[in-house]
């Protein structure tokens, strides 16, 4: 009896191990790329802390690819998106990128949404000579490391210094602010680096940053820090962060009686901000972004997105869509799935019409595109400035 039980246990364990071994072997091979398709790896934050940004970016990308496929593909070839989950974590992003490149044999990688995750896959892609398009990783070091351009990395958004500069000038010149407080998301590279640039530029222009504070992703309650920031009595508050927290920050700031302008960056660009904060609270706030939804040239994208997903796009979706457009254009010009040729074509992107405007690639693999500053006014967004690329 005892022996039988033992035997069963051993058998069960061996079976389990073999089963897993089978899975291992099964997944080891990967499919060979069929000749009539172009495989694109979509490495995004499907789960984890920033899953909502990863998913939104993916939706935009998917829309661009679907449109291209509906129009007959590229030179008769359809584009297939192969999804992988980076779990909002750098090491998992590297893992997923390795899978897409080595198992799925993709020609191009798109994503992930956040800087840290993109940085983790740069070397893997570079070693395999597969280009990456990072739709919304805004840190300069994504494309330029120690003064050297990363040959296989491109992006479809503008970089932090650009935006920080724009908002510092706006605060100083348009809002006539002499003093400011900065409130950043210390779990985000994007937010921290924007906060730093803003401070440098604002102080260089003669302003003064009185207080710098930080919060963490997924925080719910900001009142304690906001109360502290209020004691500084500054003319403006700069919150370079993503919409989920921004909505709550604006709402709570107004609740505790902060009436001064609150300004931010493209992370604010989501209809949810108004839902969370409420349109009254959102008055007297300004942010920079890539386009105004009033702009006629952006309308086709917004309509198409609305039709496909039954919701308005946010900035992540727009940048994902732009990344898709860049990709399609590059594959078209490269005339095939060869990664080297696609890389070259991406670098030569010029005057391409994307969802949010016209875009050209500069020598550092950063797009040259317009920026706009929008004001939230009674639930509407009004364009207050348009900054064309220099």
């Amino acid at each position: 009896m005892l022996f039988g039980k033992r035997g069963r246990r051993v058998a069960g364990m061996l079976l389990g191990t073999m089963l897993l071994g089978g899975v291992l072997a099964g997944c080891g091979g990967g499919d060979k790329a069929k000749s009539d398709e172009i495989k694109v790896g979509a490495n995004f934050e499907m789960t984890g802390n920033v899953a909502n940004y990863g998913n939104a970016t993916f939706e935009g990308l998917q829309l661009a690819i679907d449109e291209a496929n509906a129009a007959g593909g590229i030179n008769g070839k359809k584009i297939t998106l192969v999804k992988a989950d980076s779990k909002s974590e750098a090491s998992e992003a590297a893992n997923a990128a390795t899978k897409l490149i080595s198992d799925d044999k993709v020609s191009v990688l798109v994503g992930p949404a956040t800087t840290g995750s993109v940085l983790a896959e740069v070397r893997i892609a570079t070693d395999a000579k597969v280009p990456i398009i990072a739709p919304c990783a805004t840190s300069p070091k994504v494309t330029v490391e120690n003064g050297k351009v990363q040959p296989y990395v491109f992006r479809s958004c503008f970089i932090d210094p650009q935006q920080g500069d724009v908002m510092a000038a706006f605060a100083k010149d348009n809002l006539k602010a002499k003093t400011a407080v900065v409130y950043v998301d210390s779990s985000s590279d994007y937010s921290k680096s924007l906060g730093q640039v803003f401070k440098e530029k604002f102080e260089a222009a003669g302003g003064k940053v009185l207080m710098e504070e930080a919060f963490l992703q997924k925080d719910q309650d900001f009142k304690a820090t906001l109360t502290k920031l209020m004691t500084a009595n500054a003319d403006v508050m700069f919150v370079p962060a993503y919409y989920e927290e921004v909505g709550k920050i604006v709402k709570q700031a107004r609740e505790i009686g902060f009436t001064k302008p609150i300004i931010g960056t493209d992370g604010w660009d989501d209809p949810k901000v108004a839902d969370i904060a409420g349109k009254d609270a959102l008055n007297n706030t300004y942010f920079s972004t890539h386009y105004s939804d009033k702009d006629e040239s952006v309308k086709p994208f917004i309509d198409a997105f609305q039709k496909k997903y039954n919701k308005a796009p946010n900035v992540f979706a727009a940048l994902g869509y732009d990344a898709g457009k860049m990709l399609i254009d590059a594959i078209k010009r490269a005339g095939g799935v060869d990664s080297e040729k696609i890389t070259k074509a991406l670098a030569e992107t010029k005057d391409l019409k994307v969802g949010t405007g016209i875009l050209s690639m500069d020598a550092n693999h950063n797009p040259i595109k317009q920026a706009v500053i929008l004001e939230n006014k009674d639930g509407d967004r009004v364009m207050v400035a348009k900054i064309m690329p220099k």
Partner: protein
Amino acid sequence: MDFGSHLIQQLINGISLGSVYALIALGYTMVYGIIKLINFAHGDIYMVGAYVGFFAITVAHMGIFPALIVSMVVTGLLGMVVERLAYKPLRHAPRISVLITAIGVSFFLEYGSMYFVSPTPRTFPRVFETEGLTIAGFTVNGQQLLIFAITLVLMVLLTYIVQYTKIGKAMRAVSFDTETAQLMGIDANRVISVTFGIGSALAAAGGVLVGVYYNSIDPLMGIMPGLKAFVAAVLGGIGIIPGAMAGGLILGIIEALVSGFISSTFRDAAAFAILILVLLFKPSGLFGKNTQEKV
């Protein structure tokens, strides 16, 4: 704002934050009290409660209070189902296995809801006016008061249930010694099930109130509050109902003061550091009795 009034404002902020922790901690502590399980899925039950409330308001067009009740009932039942399916079969297994199961349930609820309701945050419709009340120069939000009041009422109610009702006595008996309780004719499984139901309903109440107050819910919203509530429960002495309340408030106040006077980046670190310090001097929490093993 001078130092004194800044301090008072931060205390108000802390108490309001702390009552949210306390509300979740109450359920945590009840479940722990009865089967000594750190139910890591509790924070996710709270998240489910928020979503049930959300759909009750937006899809079924209910008012806030009916939605709160519906959410508490539905989530309470969910808690009982989870207990029945995932924990009950492991009643005699090592405690750590049940803990791992709880982590599994937590993952399942998080990623399941990520799949079904998408990771995009949802916003609660306005169900209250969010006017800040200004009392003697300090701003208090109506909802803050509401959350605090509801937490207080629930704590008193729970203490009453546990101390004076039949089911409460059964709970204490099961908590003290499950087997002896069963010999005395108590249906321990039913008592445990009810405890999970009540605990989960409390979490749901917390979820809906927080959803209304902060106005945004998402599938991962339960992780941090769940952890903080656990810290609060341990701080007060896990298994003790007033301890959970006190622990929650203390934790909230610590966080507000650290954010307000030191730096918000060290807020969580400070909260944990204080927990550890308290444990070093009072190894069973503030309200816990030190029981030495009999040799």
